[in-house]
């Protein structure tokens, strides 16, 4: 795998570190009651988010899932506005109306996290249709989990993207467990890329713990989409270090399994080694990076904590434009 230049590589590493620190911090805060509602931790899945978003242009569109802190951070939103959203404060990305599960800002190409499994892929497909209709040179990425591989709307959207050659990239952020259900136990045929191929699209099963591999496959998919060759499907195998929701342990997998993934496949450890081996950084520089990330996340928490609550008188704002009732 060709390693990108120093600046890019260190950027990828730092972004993964930001996500990890953000998630570990948010998890603790959630257990202390600071986060409203559920909190879906993406620790372990950093390489998928960073690999995908680093291969996109800033104005490319994403739509994602209930577990989307990592995608949103990698899209370029700040730790501050995402932490503030977890705290449901007015300074959050969704103005405090969304919390962990509904991060989004359409004006910046983030078409939303989603509380409904598979819905983000449909919206991303629609965005890809919008891109095609307008003749823009952009792509749309629909993130989905392995749990979304068995809902009908996913494959309706995929089929539509294929027949219309839409610039859509479906990325399966495959952490292998739909809440507590192992993907292999509920997936007919077993091979997700083969399933997608059956719809007539380029499809790949890849290592979602390797940021450069993810980046490479998404870059190629993006090129194909921009060339008018239609959608691609990338099943990135990864692993979720924590429970589905904050505080959940469960009996559905062994501690040994979790420890093995962490000790042998961790995306940050792996890429840190690549960066050091390539001479882009030494251990001191890595430690310094980690410290600056720590400071960033601490600042985000302080910002969120100090941010005002939304004004409850705004509950009726932004439901509709009000323009339908105006005489034109």
């Amino acid at each position, binding site marked *: 795998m060709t390693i990108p230049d120093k600046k890019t590589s260190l950027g990828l590493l730092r972004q993964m570190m930001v996500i990890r620190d953000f998630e570990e911090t948010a998890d603790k805060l959630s257990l202390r009651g600071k986060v409203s509602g559920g909190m879906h931790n993406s620790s372990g899945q950093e390489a998928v988010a960073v690999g995908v978003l680093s291969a996109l242009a800033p104005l490319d*569109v994403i*739509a994602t899932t209930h577990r989307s802190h990592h995608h949103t951070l990698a899209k370029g939103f700040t730790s501050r506005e995402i932490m503030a959203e977890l705290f449901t404060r007015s300074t959050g990305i*969704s*103005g405090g*109306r*969304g919390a962990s599960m*509904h991060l*989004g*800002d*359409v*004006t910046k190409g*983030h*078409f*939303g996290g*989603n*509380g*409904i499994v598979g*819905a983000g892929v*449909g*919206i*991303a*497909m*629609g*965005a*890809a*249709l*919008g*891109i095609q*209709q*307008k003749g823009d040179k952009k792509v*749309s990425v629909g993130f989905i989990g392995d749990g979304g591989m068995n809902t*009908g*709307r996913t494959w*309706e*959207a995929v*089929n*539509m993207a294929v*027949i*219309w050659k839409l610039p859509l990239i479906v990325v399966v952020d495959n952490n292998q467990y739909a809440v507590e259900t192992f993907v292999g136990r509920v997936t007919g045929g077993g091979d997700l890329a083969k399933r997608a191929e059956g719809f007539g699209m380029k499809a790949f099963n890849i290592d979602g713990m390797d940021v450069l591999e993810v980046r490479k496959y998404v870059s190629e998919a993006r090129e194909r989409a921009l060339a008018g060759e239609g959608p691609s499907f990338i099943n990135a195998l990864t692993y979720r270090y924590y429970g589905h929701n904050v505080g959940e342990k469960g009996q559905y997998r062994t501690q040994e399994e979790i420890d093995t993934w962490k000790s042998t496949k961790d995306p940050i450890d792996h890429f840190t080694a690549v960066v050091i081996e390539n001479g882009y950084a030494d251990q001191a520089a890595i430690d310094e990076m980690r410290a600056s990330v720590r400071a960033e996340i601490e600042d985000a928490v302080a910002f969120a904590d100090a941010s005002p609550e939304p004004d409850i008188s705004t509950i009726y704002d*932004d*439901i*509709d*434009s009000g*323009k*339908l*009732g*105006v*005489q*034109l």
Partner: protein
Amino acid sequence: MTTAPTTAPKVQNPNYSEAFQSGVREEMKRNPGIFILGTDLIERGGHFAQVKGIAQEFGHERVKDSPISEAAMVAAGVGAAMYGCHPIVDLNFIDFAFGAMDEILNQAAKIRFMFNGKVPLVIRATSGVALGGAHHCNSLESLFASTPGLSVAVPSTPMDVKGLIKTALRAEDPVIFLMHKKLSGIRGEIADENYFIPFGKAKSIRTGTDAVIISYGYSLVTAQKAAQTLEAEGVSVEIIDLRTLYPLDEQAINDAVKKFGRVVVLDEAPMFGSITAEIAATATERNFSSLKGPIVRVGGARAPISANPAMADAAIPTVASIIKAVKQVMSY
């Protein structure tokens, strides 16, 4: 309430579907971001000829035939709308919305509220009770109207079809646009390209002095027949066409309740949890002292619609049931 336009109609005596075509064509010429997506639209023109000829005029990029994938059809419209287009997703029959309920109620309706975006989207479908049996005769308007973020149009004339679809296509909100099956054959004048009907403005379609019927859609046809019979018997009935169910013209309803005090609310949806329940309850809360007696609702049975024509008719309001209701309010 608004009055009829003074501008001369361009197309003489078009039918309900042609009125829709006329409004859509005018707006498509003006806004290249408008496109139509649905099944059997290009050649067939839709099941009700509602877009017949538009593909031939505007090309297959702007009238797209889709697979029968309702969830993906609506999702395609939602995502494209968020991106800046103004799609019309044509479901043919509103019953097919069941395959896309998450996309309509949970996605389209809530994006503006949460994600700093707009969803300029029209979901057009033919609705209402007619022949065809239970799977094609659902009345879903109260479900959509009660969902924050959605607006619902229920035009009853070619004039209103055109005026309302043009407004919908200039706005930036998800609109459920319901055209009644049994109005497909009606003809009437339409206005020129500068005529827009704002949502939330009811219209009096028959003036009267004794009692008022508040309704929408095909029920207005039945109401007119009842009103004629009642007129011969010396009872003068006003009829108000709501035209949109959300936003609802609360002012027109208030005014009518205050003016007449004898109120019948009519539609063909199952009465349990219906729009008529909403109107009657709200009017009673707000204007109880103006009422001469209880508001009478006339509505559909809480029963699936049978394919047998007589059974289907028995499940919805009839001229006789409306006359009975008006006589009831006249008895106070």
